[in-house]
């Protein structure tokens, strides 16, 4: 797979082969030890019976069959799909709106961009904890907002629909700025002359957005969608802190199920099997992303 352009014959220093290899060796070693080796070991565990850390007999795909037929895991697939799609739609829409709203480089826009980035730069744990506080009965917000509708006793985290809504809101609150930054980078690369020309031709704002911005923004939009989707499919902190998977596992996503399988039940064989299923799914998304990135073009 040669997706990155070679440097050969482009003025690169061809003589320094040994020197270059020495420079990349430590980085490769670390990645091999702490990313690729765990994956290999994980696959090995996933095809054996494992009791805590005692690896037992080879059992082929039994762990995989076990997790994929388990009702809890199946439930988590559905929950993940709902959460990821809902969060994607909400976050992307808000992110795009923010990018268009804050596109120009005025002082106000730069300040506003910094403000919306704050939920993104603080730790996910703290962000979710703060929202858990705001949305809980203890803060008084649900009562104040829902009181006039006669449901002041309503608890957001005790109802599966509103708990999922809260999770989705948490995702948007944190990551809309991330989507905005990615989309802004794309918006900046559109030449302003195009808009000027369209304006001279009498194109309305909506027409300019529809016929100029959207088509020219196609690749940044796709990259943003894939990156958000991967992030939401694998997110763990939102669920662990905000809802704890509740009520009655209705917000327990695959990542949280895997976490519990591994670190609460210590079923390391099955947990590794489920991790590998998740990993394969991610690899598919990553290969889509790499083809969208075309990093070679950005290299120069």
């Amino acid at each position, binding site marked *: 797979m040669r997706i990155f352009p070679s440097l050969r014959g482009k003025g690169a220093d061809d003589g320094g082969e040994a020197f270059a290899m020495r420079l990349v060796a430590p980085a490769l070693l670390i990645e091999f030890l*702490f990313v690729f080796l765990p994956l290999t070991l994980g696959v090995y565990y996933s095809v054996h019976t494992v009791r805590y850390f005692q690896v037992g007999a080879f059992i082929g795909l039994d762990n995989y069959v076990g997790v994929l037929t388990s009702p809890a895991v199946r439930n988590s697939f559905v929950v993940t799909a709902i959460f990821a799609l809902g969060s994607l739609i909400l976050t992307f829409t808000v992110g795009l709106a923010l990018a268009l709203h804050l596109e120009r480089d005025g002082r106000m826009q730069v300040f506003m961009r910094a403000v919306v980035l704050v939920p993104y730069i603080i730790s996910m744990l703290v962000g979710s904890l703060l929202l858990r506080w705001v949305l809980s009965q203890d803060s008084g917000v649900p009562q104040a907002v829902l009181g006039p509708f006669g449901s002041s006793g309503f608890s957001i985290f005790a109802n599966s629909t509103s708990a999922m809504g809260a999770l989705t809101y948490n995702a948007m609150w944190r990551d809309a700025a991330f989507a905005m930054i990615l989309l802004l980078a794309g918006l900046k690369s559109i030449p302003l002359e195009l808009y000027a020309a369209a304006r001279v031709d009498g194109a309305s704002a909506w027409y300019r957005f529809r016929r100029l911005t959207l088509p020219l923004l196609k690749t940044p939009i796709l990259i943003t969608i894939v990156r958000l989707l991967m992030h939401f499919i694998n997110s763990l902190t939102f669920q662990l802190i905000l809802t704890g998977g509740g009520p009655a596992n209705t917000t327990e996503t695959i990542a949280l199920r895997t976490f519990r399988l591994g670190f609460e039940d210590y079923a390391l064989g099955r947990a590794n099997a489920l991790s590998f299923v998740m990993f394969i799914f991610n690899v598919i998304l990553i290969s889509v992303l790499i083809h969208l990135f075309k990093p070679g073009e950005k290299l120069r």
Partner: protein
Amino acid sequence: MSYKRAILARGLGTFVLNCVIVFFALAPLLWGFSSSIKPTDQILKVPPEIIPSEVTFAHYRTLIENDVFRYMGNSAIVSAATVLLCLGIGTFAGYALSRFAFRGRNFVMVVVVTVMSIPIAALLVPTYTLIANIGLLDTRTGLVLLYTAYELPIVIWIMLGYFNTIPRQLEHAAMIDGYSRFETLRRVILPLTGPAMIASGLFVLTSAWNDFVVAVVMTSGQAVRTLPVAVYFYLGFFGREWGPLLAASMVSMAPIILIFILFQKYFVSGVTGGSVKG
């Protein structure tokens, strides 16, 4: 006249919209802060007071009694070590990828982009399995090595992009002057990389300081517990006692917000994984 009024109305509309955005983005943080300095019985008061009528630092004192300084120290050590290791290794790798057409360059690039994209959650269980097997469970070293593995690709990517903007003629000149390749890198090129070092260093620092999922899985003892994990344990310990919990959130968040205010322009390049302007 009506044209002027339209502009005025538009300006007002933008202003109102901006206020709404600021409110939704920051209200949870500001309110968390105001509640963290209220006495316990005031926190649960309905309707809540936006600005506390009575200010107390009792919740912060509770944290100090519960070892918060030790956890902050652990977080600081782990984050600093990760930044140093990432910059040390990542700068060299980025330089090699930018300058040399060595065998395996394409392979290294694929590794960098792949690891940059793999979500950590998909690796947690296998990584725990490995770390437990090689005896790095419950150590700061284990955390530093894992964070380095996860953040290295973005450092390499940022440095690579920055080296590409430095003209090769500089190295040619230095080597004609009799510098070895390594001396050229150390004395001529490295002194020019300041902005990219700051941008990638800040990104790594933030990620390591903020990380919760890796640390909560790979450590269990109090001796090596980092601040986010401590906040999580406070959640179990204090339950619905929001005072200490919100105070802990503020303690965890404050350094990051301060760094963000001071170095704002460097942050965006880390998010996009893209170019740094010198």
